[in-house]
């Protein structure tokens, strides 16, 4: 078995894992749970992108992975931002 076939199979497994993680986005219960699941999606997505980059032979896909990492950080920061004047710390 060549590694690219194995990589594709593992990417498929990760995709199914991500789809299972989507259940947590949908059922919640709290918004923080949804945010967390979205973060998990980002991390697994980066892994899938890395595997695809190796399988399809497109190194540029890693730049998309960098954007995914940025996106996770920005959305978590936007999510946890407190209203001004609510908490002085």
């Amino acid at each position, binding site marked *: 078995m060549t590694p690219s076939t194995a990589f594709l199979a593992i990417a498929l497994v990760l995709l199914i894992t991500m789809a299972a993680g989507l259940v947590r986005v949908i059922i919640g219960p709290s918004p923080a749970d949804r945010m967390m699941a979205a973060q998990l999606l980002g991390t697994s997505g980066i892994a899938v992108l890395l595997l695809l980059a190796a399988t399809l032979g497109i190194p540029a896909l890693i*730049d*998309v992975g960098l954007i995914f990492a940025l996106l996770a950080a920005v*959305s978590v920061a936007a999510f946890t931002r407190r209203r001004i004047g609510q908490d002085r710390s």
Partner: protein
Amino acid sequence: MPTLLLLFDLVLLATLIVLALATVLSPEPRRAVMLFIAFGLWLALVWARLRAPDIALAEAAIGAGMGGALMLAAARRAAHRDEAAGGDGDKRA
């Protein structure tokens, strides 16, 4: 390998459609925004699979990232206004 690739595409597409439906049909704005971010990530994966890293980049950065952050802020403000107006907040779900 081709069979595996086909399976990969099928899972990718099926989940994309389910996500789109869940986003549109979600009654709660904040849940819809979360699902929209997830949808953007997923669509970026589809573009990556279609060998279009530049479009995947744009989709992830603008569609899911900036759009998602702005919509989060908007949903927060809308819910806040609802509450301030003495409405039932976003408990309509």
